[in-house]
Structure formats: structure tokens, C-alpha cells
């Protein structure tokens, strides 16, 4: 515990959005404030509005997807309890859960346990604080459950979750439902969802109101905390790759809430399982600093290549030391991507793509001319590689990949072979891509899922618009460079004019003007670089990333195709069986039956795979959207700040010039 509490501070100061902290502060404060009045007048109407006001903005910012994700499990639970017979709903939601736990699979089976371990820790305390309202029966029940026996229960349950359908897995569900039964979570989930889950929310609306209305009044004060915990717990149970983030969110608001110590302690339960590690790490994604520096040319002629220093600074325990540095060449980065995409793309993960190979740019560098364009090329690539690595490690499940760690830590890497643009492997890759494209065209998937249907369309549109915007920004960069060049020429010209001016004061002023223009030229140049690096490159990155997102969609489509093929095959086998039956050939009948069984199994397997990949892709896309919003916001602010800075400089320059102009007599 001690060790973990040591680790606890980082997330707060490190959290890159301090304003979020403030926000949540406010929300929580205001909330506790209103909750008092709520006690006096328990009408739910008066309590909800403030909630909305304070919580929505908070979630709006970046936890939208988060709450949605949460809502998923919540719904699962809800539908189960009141009406276990509502098959449709259960099926819909229980499967993903099932899948999820499968995804967790062997190495992480123990995960749920530590999570649940934490949970009791936090739960009882929160209950203490909530001065248990008796009206909600489940709550009371669960409060009792929070004893040791409960813990044991929980320990027993997880394996079940993995293996069985949701109904038997009652106890853990119960724990969750208790948390979830406060209305506050739900209305939000319904209100602010970004439409994404709206449809789903609709499937299980009936049971909610009853449960919620009863508890809403009673646990008004503490519902906030519950909220937070529910988030935390739900995520954990879900083992979503995003729980780190959620957890953080959960932790942060709770800081302001009265149950601060509870929350923090809960977040760092002493366990050292992979799962926990993962949380910690991504919690501290900001604690894992990767920088790519010192591009250096190695070798001569066409065999020359650029080597980059990859320095990592981290407090994560999964690494052997806190800081380490390796040298990597560009093809190593590409190799890493190859490895990662091979492993993870088929599961529906968005693997951040590395910068493209540029034969032209590299040849220039290789030829070794020290002109500014090749220096710019190298710098541009360096920055792109840095961003690429940062994106990789900020993905919680990619960070877990041994290849990533190897890439960051290991002294020597086996040379990546298949990354050369003109190699046989490259040719094969191209061939694969072509066949993929063809098959993509032939697959006509009738999209069942409205969410995906919309999202695919959105991504397509977004990519187009991004491209357009990128072109615009590129032209801005070019024009600004042009402006800079023209300013320089003008400055020279003015200097000449000043030298031939016979009025001394005016001559002086003109040469001053020339100097000012010179400085402005510098300014424009810097700004052009800023335009490029903070804005244009961001867009280029996201165009690439959107491509990766589309790749995920394609993977999902492929999975669907597999499923459909199997389905068709099964159909055929059945027909064969029917024919055999008709023809009365019992000897072959057995074989046909076996085949049917085999294909039936395959169908279910593929269907499950498809569902799993759908769930992963969905999660990934939500995560991607969130990251994107954050990234854009940060970059845009940075960009505007650079603009601001250059304008301030401009003011300075001109203000310095003003007296000179006035001195002309």
C-alpha cells in the first residue's frame, strides 16, 4: 500500500488537463451543495438539473465515450436483474461481456480478482459515507455483502464470468447493480450519449426507471461517488483497454469528493498484476516520455541510413530501468509497425501507422547534400517518428506488446527486412493490398449495426474533409514561406533605398525599417514552421490514422465475411444432408452430420469472432475519437499560442520602430 500510495500522486499533477480537475471540482462541490438542498426537498426534479449542468460539461469534454462504455455494462446488468427472461436484451449485451472475458483469456484471468479486490475497499467506505438509505433494497443488501464473505464471493465469481453465460454470474453483477442503481448515472448516460449508444440504451430502458427512481432520492449525496466507483468498477470488470483512462477520471473527481482517500486507495490496490500495471502505465502515459532525437547519418552512399536516438523516460515498473536509450533506424520503426499490425489489426485494434517512406527525401539525404530541404526532411521525419511512438505507447494494449518493449529497451534489434520499399516483400505487400482492395469492393456487407454504419460514413467524410483542410494548410505554409521570402527581399530593397536617401533622418528610418522587415521575415519563417509542424503534420497524422481506422473497419468486415461464408457453407451441408436423407444413404449421412456439426461450430466461432471484433473496433474507435479530440485541442491551442506569440513579437518590432518613424524630420 505504501508503495502504491507513493505512486499515487503523479496522476494528479501530471494530468495534462488541469482544467478538468477544476471542472470536476466544481461539479463535485456544487453537487454536494445541491445535495443538501436535495435532502430538504427530495423531489427528483430539483436534483437532476444541477447534476446535468455540472456533470455534463465534464463528460462532454472527453469522457463521453467513457460514459458510454460504462453504460454498456450497466445495461447488461440492468436488463438481467429485473427480467432475466428478456432474451433479446440479454443476448445483445451478455455476449460482448462473455467475449470480453474471453479476450482477457489466460494471462489475465486473474484480473477481475484484483479489481474486485479493490472494489470492496472502496465500496464499504462509500457506503459509510452515504448513511445508508433503506429504501433501496438492493443497496442495503449489497452493503451487507460487503463483508469478507462478499469478497470471497467475488473471488469465486470471476471464473464463472469467463466461462458461463451471464445469468449464473449473479453475485458480482449484484455488486455492480448496487452501484449502478442510482439514477444519476443513467439519466446521464441517456442524455449526453453521443448518439452512439442511444439505440442500445433504448433497448433496456424499461427496467431502469423503477430501480433508479427508488434509489435516486435516497442516496442523493453520495450518488456522485457511487457514480465514480461504478465507473471504476465497471471498467475493471470489463477489462476494457481503456479502463486506465476511466479510472483516472473516476479518481480525479473523487479527489474533490469527500471520499478522496477511498478513491485513491482503491485506485492503487497493492496487486501487481498485469491488469493493474496496465492501468498504472496508461494512467501515467504522461510518465512515459519518449523522445526521438539526434538523427544521424550512418554510412555512405545509397546504403546510408538515418539512425535516431530513442530515449525513454519512465517510472513504469514493466521496464528494467527508469531511463534508457537505444538507437534505431527508420526501418526499425516500420518493422515495429509491421509486427504490431500483424498481431493486433486482426483483433480490431487501431495500430498507429508510422510516417511513410519517402524515397525521394531519403535519397536526397543519402546523396548527402547539406541543403535546407533535406535538413527539413530529417527534422520532419524525426518529429513524426516521435509522435508515432508516443501514439503507440499511449495505447494501453499496444504498450503491453513485447515487441514494443523490445523496441524501446533492447540494445540490438534484428534488422527489419520486409520494410524496404523495393524489396520482394514490399511487392508482396502491394499485391496483398491490391487483393484486399478487390475483395473489399466485392464484399457487400449489409450493415446491421446502425452505429457502425454511421461511423464508417463519418470516418469517410472526415477523412475527405481532413484532406481538404490539409491541402489548405499546406498552401498556407507555402504562402507564408513566400511571404517570408518576399519580406526578406523587400527588406534588402528598402535597405538599398535607405542608403541612397539623402535625408539623413529618413535614411536612418528606412534602414531601421529594413531591419524590422528582416525580423518580421524571421517571424514569418518561424510561423511557417509552426504552421507546418503543429498544424499540417497533425492533420497528416490524422489522415494516416483515419486510414488505420478504416483498416479496422475492413477487418471487421472480413470477419463478417468469414462468418457469412461459414453460414453459407453450413446451409449447403444441410442441403446435402437433406439430399442424402432423401436418397436414403445412411453411410454418408453420418459424415454429413459430422460436417454439419463442424460447420455449426465454425459458424458460432466466427460469429463470436465477429462480435468480438465489432466490440473491440467500437471501443477502439471511441478511444480514437477521444484521443483525437484531445490531441486536436492541444495542438490547436499550441498553434494559436504560436500565432499569438508571433503577433506579440510583431507588436514589439513595430513599437520599436514607431519612434524612428516619428524622428524623421
Amino acid at each position: 500500500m505504501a508503495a502504491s500510495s507513493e505512486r499515487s500522486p503523479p496522476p494528479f499533477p501530471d494530468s495534462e488537463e488541469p482544467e478538468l480537475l477544476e471542472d470536476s471540482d466544481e461539479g463535485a462541490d456544487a453537487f454536494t451543495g445541491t445535495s443538501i438542498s436535495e435532502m430538504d426537498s427530495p423531489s427528483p426534479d430539483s436534483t437532476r438539473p444541477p447534476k446535468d449542468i455540472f456533470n455534463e460539461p465534464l463528460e462532454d469534454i472527453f469522457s463521453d465515450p467513457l460514459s458510454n462504455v460504462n453504460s454498456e455494462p450497466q445495461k447488461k446488468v440492468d436488463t438481467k436483474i429485473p427480467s432475466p427472461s428478456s432474451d433479446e436484451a440479454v443476448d445483445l449485451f451478455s455476449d460482448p461481456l462473455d467475449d470480453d472475458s474471453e479476450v482477457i483469456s489466460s494471462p489475465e484471468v486473474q484480473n477481475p480478482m484484483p479489481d474486485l479486490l479493490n472494489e470492496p475497499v472502496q465500496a464499504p467506505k462509500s457506503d459509510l459515507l452515504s448513511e445508508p438509505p433503506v429504501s433501496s433494497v438492493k443497496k442495503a443488501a449489497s452493503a451487507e455483502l460487503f463483508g469478507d464473505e462478499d469478497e470471497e464471493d467475488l473471488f469465486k465469481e470471476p471464473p464463472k464470468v469467463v466461462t458461463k453465460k451471464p445469468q449464473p454470474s449473479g453475485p458480482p453483477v449484484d455488486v455492480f447493480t448496487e452501484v449502478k442503481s442510482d439514477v444519476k448515472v443513467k439519466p446521464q448516460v441517456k442524455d449526453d450519449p453521443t448518439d452512439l449508444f442511444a439505440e442500445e440504451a433504448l433497448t433496456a430502458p424499461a427496467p431502469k426507471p423503477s430501480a433508479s427512481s427508488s434509489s435516486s432520492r435516497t442516496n442523493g449525496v453520495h450518488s456522485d461517488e457511487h457514480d465514480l466507483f461504478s465507473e471504476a468498477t465497471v471498467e475493471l470488470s470489463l477489462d476494457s483497454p481503456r479502463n486506465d483512462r476511466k479510472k483516472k477520471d473516476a479518481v480525479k473527481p473523487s479527489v474533490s469528493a469527500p471520499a478522496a482517500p477511498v478513491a485513491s486507495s482503491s485506485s492503487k490496490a497493492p496487486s501487481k498484476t498485469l491488469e493493474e500495471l496496465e492501468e498504472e502505465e496508461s494512467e501515467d502515459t504522461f510518465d512515459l516520455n519518449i523522445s526521438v532525437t539526434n538523427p544521424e547519418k550512418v554510412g555512405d552512399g545509397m546504403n546510408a541510413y538515418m539512425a535516431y536516438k530513442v530515449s525513454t523516460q519512465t517510472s513504469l515498473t514493466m521496464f528494467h530501468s527508469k531511463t534508457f536509450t537505444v538507437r534505431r533506424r527508420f526501418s526499425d520503426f516500420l518493422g515495429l509497425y509491421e509486427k504490431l499490425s500483424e498481431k493486433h489489426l486482426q483483433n480490431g485494434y487501431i495500430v498507429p501507422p508510422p510516417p511513410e517512406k519517402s524515397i525521394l527525401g531519403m535519397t536526397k539525404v543519402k546523396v548527402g547534400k547539406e541543403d535546407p530541404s533535406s535538413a527539413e526532411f530529417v527534422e520532419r521525419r524525426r518529429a513524426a517518428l516521435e509522435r508515432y511512438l508516443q501514439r503507440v505507447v499511449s495505447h494501453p494494449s499496444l504498450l503491453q506488446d513485447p515487441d514494443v518493449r523490445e523496441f524501446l529497451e533492447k540494445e540490438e534489434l534484428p534488422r527489419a527486412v520486409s520494410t524496404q520499399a523495393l524489396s520482394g516483400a514490399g511487392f508482396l505487400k502491394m499485391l496483398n493490398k491490391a487483393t484486399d482492395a478487390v475483395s473489399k469492393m466485392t464484399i457487400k456487407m449489409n450493415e446491421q449495426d446502425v452505429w457502425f454504419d454511421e461511423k464508417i460514413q463519418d470516418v469517410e467524410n472526415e477523412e475527405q474533409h481532413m484532406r481538404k483542410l490539409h491541402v489548405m494548410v499546406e498552401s498556407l505554409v507555402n504562402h507564408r514561406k513566400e511571404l517570408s521570402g518576399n519580406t526578406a527581399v523587400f527588406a534588402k530593397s528598402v535597405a538599398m533605398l535607405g542608403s541612397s536617401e539623402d535625408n539623413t533622418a529618413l535614411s536612418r528610418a528606412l534602414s531601421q525599417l529594413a531591419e524590422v522587415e528582416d525580423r518580421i521575415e524571421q517571424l514569418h519563417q518561424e510561423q511557417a514552421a509552426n504552421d507546418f509542424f503543429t498544424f499540417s503534420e497533425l492533420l497528416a497524422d490524422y489522415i494516416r490514422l483515419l486510414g488505420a481506422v478504416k483498416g479496422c473497419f475492413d477487418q471487421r468486415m472480413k470477419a463478417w465475411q468469414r462468418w457469412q461464408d461459414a453460414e453459407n457453407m453450413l446451409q449447403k451441408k444441410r442441403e446435402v444432408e437433406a439430399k442424402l436423407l432423401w436418397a436414403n444413404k445412411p453411410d454418408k449421412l453420418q459424415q454429413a452430420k459430422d460436417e454439419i456439426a463442424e460447420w455449426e461450430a465454425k459458424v458460432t466461432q466466427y460469429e463470436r469472432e465477429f462480435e468480438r471484433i465489432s466490440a473491440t473496433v467500437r471501443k477502439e474507435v471511441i478511444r480514437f475519437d477521444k484521443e483525437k479530440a484531445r490531441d486536436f485541442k492541444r495542438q490547436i491551442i499550441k498553434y494559436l499560442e504560436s500565432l499569438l506569440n508571433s503577433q506579440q513579437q510583431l507588436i514589439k518590432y513595430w513599437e520599436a520602430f514607431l519612434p524612428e518613424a516619428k524622428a524623421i524630420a
Partner: protein
Amino acid sequence: DIPDALCERDKVKFTVHTKTTLSSFQKPEYSVQRQHEDFIWLHDTIVETEEYAGLIIPPAPPKPDFEGPREKMHKLGEGESSMTKEEYAKMKQELEAEYLAVFKKTVQVHEVFLQRLSSHPMFRKDRNFQIFLEYDQDLTVRRKNAKEMFGGFFKNMVKSADEVLISGVKEVDEFFEQEKNFLLDYSSKIKDATAKAEKMTRSHKNVADDYNHISGALNNIAADNNTAFKKHLEKCAEVFEKLRKVEDRMASDQELKLTELLRYYTRDIQAAKDLLYRRARALADYENSNKALDKARLKGKDVAQAEENQKQCLQKFDKLSESGKKELTSFKARRVVAFRKNLIEMTELEIKHAKNSVSLLQGSIEVLKSN
């Protein structure tokens, strides 16, 4: 004496308001409509008037150039169907801004021309100038026909050839010698500077236009988005939109204050050079007449006439030299004053615009951060 100008319709018509206290005018106030060609006519008549040879004749205003906006207008009309509504609106905005800038500039140069004339003690009393200001009907100046155009071109050729010829004539006055060198040097440099400044402002305008396009593209992205992200994008688009305005104004003010100044003085220096040319011409004439007088004396024929001629030439030359000296000195003073005024104004405008964008950026950064 405040000529004020307004424009109407496509054919640029300047409404010239005159307020005067001069007794030579019949009324203290006039308001007449003039076209660009009328200005040119006025300029040409003044140039052709012999008695103004010793003066720097204010350069005629350049022909109003609405090509840029017109071209854009054309593009706008062409692409109307293919563009989205927003893009169309953006284009229109750009067009309007540019049109306004060009218009402002055109009016200004014409105004300056009249002001120059009216502030000069000699030109003020010019008959044609007064007619120009007073006559309340259309002047219906006869436009130059092709022959005259060609004649003008020919005259220019002769003049430049002549300039080369008489450059061999030895200068008698150090002041003019110096002045000539200075002006030659200065004019080439200012021409250069003008061209560069033009380029600079043009690329500045391009940057502003890019801002506009970026804003449009951002809006497009925002339109498809329905998350919190949308708000950021919209805000950002708004920022760019506003930045465009500021940047655009910065560019056009720079153009108006700096480029126009340089451009005007390029022309003014040309006028001063013309004055020097006329003087040099007179000097050459005088020397020729001297030679003729010598010849006549040798031959003992037509001496009186040659003497008369020589005296006249000398007189003319002296007069030109005297008034030229005065003009050039005042020109210098005027130039310095004009540079000072424009530079100060430009600097102040630059500061103002930069401050505007600073506060704009600061505000939006805060909004984005707190959002």
C-alpha cells in the same frame, strides 16, 4: 480646398467636391462628377502647357485596376454551381474585401492628384483645373484615338533617345548634377522596392485567404461531427475567420500606406526626372543656340536673330533652373514629410492590427482551454 471623391457604378465615376475660398472661383462650393479619363486629360493639358515646364507636374493617377476582383468575380460566377454555399459565401467575402481595398486605393490616388494640384500656387490658378472643378456637366473629354496614342508612344521614344543624347551635355550647375544622380539612383531603387513591396503584400493577402479557406474546411469537419469536438472546431473556424479579417486588413493597410507611398513616389520621381529632362533639354538648346550664334557671327549673317534666339534660350534655361531648384527642394521636403506620415501611420496600423489579433487569440485560447 477639399476635393472628396465617391464612386458610382462599374464605370468609375468620381464625385469631386470642392470647397474653396479662392476668389477666382465663382462659388465657394462645387460638386461635379468626373471619370478617370478626365483626370488624364487634365494631367496632359498641364504637361503640355509651356509655362509649367519648370515645375514638377504631379503624376497622373494610374488607371483604376479592378482586374483582380473582376477575375475573382468571374471565377465566382463559374464555380457557383460546384461550390458549396459556404465556400461561395467565403469567396464573396474575399471578393468584397478586395474590391473595397482596390476602390479605396483608387479613390485615394485620384484625390491626391487633385490635392497636389490645388495646393500648388501655380497649378491652383490653372484655367483647365478650374474648369475641371467647376463645370457641372460631363466634361466629355475626347478620348485619345489610335494616332494620338501612337504619337504619345513615339514622343516617349524620342524623349528617351533624346535623354541619352543630351546626357553628354556637361552640367553647369552642381546642384542639378547631384540631383540628377540622386534621382536616377533613387528611382531605380524605389521602383525595385515598390515591386518587392507589392509582392510582399500580395503574399500577405494569400495568407489571409488561406486562413479563410482553413476556416471553411474546419467548418466542414465540424459539420460532420457531433461530439464535443465539434465545438472546438467551430471555435477554431471562427478564430480563423476573424484572423483572416485582421490579417487581410493588415495586408491592405500595408499596401495602402507603404506600397502606395512607394508607388506614388516612383511616379513623382519620374515627374521630377521629367523636369530635369526639360531643363537639360533647355540647356542643350541654349548651347546649340550659342553655337549657332558663334557660327552666325563668323559668317556675319543673321547675328541679331541668333542673338535673340540665344538670349531666349538662356532666359528659358535660367527660368527652368530657378523654378526647378525650388521645386526639387520642395519635392524633397514633401517626400520626407510624406514618408514620415505614411510610415507612422503604417506602423500604428500594424500595431493596432497585431494587438487586435493578440487579444483575439488570447480570448480564444482561453475559451478553448476552459472548454
